[in-house]
């Protein structure tokens, strides 16, 4: 089938920063994204898991944006401004999408 070039950006970020990130994305004109729950993880600041937690202080989410290649830089700059001082990982993968008119 006919597919179109795009970028898949995956931002793993603390749950408390989610609304700040999506607001920044919206401001940068990125209005399409999907948010996955994260179960746990490990990094330089240690291990964590959501099991039995009531605190919002711990826990992360993964925000996935599929975006046209020429809009990538705008997105990364918006995202970077938010994650800069915070823990989190931003990765970008080349992908192809169906229905390019949606992006």
């Amino acid at each position: 089938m006919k597919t179109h070039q795009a970028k898949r950006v995956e931002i793993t970020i603390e749950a408390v920063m989610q609304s700040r990130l999506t607001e920044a994305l919206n401001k940068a004109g990125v209005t399409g994204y999907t948010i996955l729950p994260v179960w746990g993880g490990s990094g330089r600041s240690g291990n964590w898991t959501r099991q039995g937690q009531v605190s919002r202080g711990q826990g992360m989410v993964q925000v996935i944006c599929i975006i046209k290649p020429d809009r990538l830089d705008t997105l990364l700059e918006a995202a970077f401004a938010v994650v800069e001082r915070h823990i989190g990982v931003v990765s970008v993968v080349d992908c192809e999408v169906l229905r390019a008119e949606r992006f």
Partner: protein
Amino acid sequence: MDQILSLAATNLLSPIILCFVLGVLAALARSDLHFPEAVAKGMSIYLLFAIGFKGGVSVADHGIDLNLGLSLLAGIFLSALLPLIAFAILKALTSLSRLDAAAVAAHYGSISIVTFVAATSVLEASGITSEGYMVAVAAAMEAPAILSALWLISRGGDAEDGARRMDSALLREIMLNGSIVLLVGSFVIGGITGADGMARIESFIVNPFQGVLCLFLLDMGLVAGRGLREGGAVLRPGPLAFGVIMPLVGSSIGLVTALLLGVSTGGTALFMVLSASASYIAVPAAMRVALPEANPSIYLTLSLGVTFPFNLTLGIPLYVAIAQTFGGG
């Protein structure tokens, strides 16, 4: 002294404390026992709703008096003051960085609602009554400490940096965080519906309360124990000592405040408990947003792994006994 010990003994052998201990032991032994996050949150919603509603009904029964307003103001004042004291003690006792010390201080100015709930259980079991509005005081004490701590930072570094950390979005998040809204909301609903409302939902919020508290403390034990296992290593003797000294200092200040206000014995004990306890829900979230560079292992381990168990087991009976000695009627 005898009385304190006997109250402590009764307290230590209550199902509530034993459930907490079970959780800590299970976590330290690396059992896979755990509560799903949704269940833990569901129980916490239940407890906040029930305690708020009961407080409101009690105020409806006894009427609003001047003391309610004064106690709220005193609570706000305590919550704003305690971080400054905590910060000073931390600077003296530990080598924590300015940021870490401020983050810890914010937790100790704010309150732990489960500690409060456990204390009301102990009071009830001992037949000591307290003012229903104390739950509103608890709600009022959640947030001011965060502002104090951020002020400490802004004073230390450049003021501009401090301002950047506290934007209006964060302020709204802090003031309207879920536990404050639920506590205040159910308090108001309890106040409006009074004894009639209570009659309708009593068998939901009163009867099973102790049992839900048991399971919730089991979960808290699991989380605290896991935190100690993972984060215990970061705690050096200084911070550790702080985790026990600060509740004693806090409760003393709470005691003086309560005596000045002239609240009941139960109310005095609860003022002590609120001042002695450290937040583990609202403040950690605010710290992640405003002070992301502060190390969460330090403040979470201190608050949940040291001070919470201390208050739950030894602190509460001590505060109650002291309140009985000094407190009015």
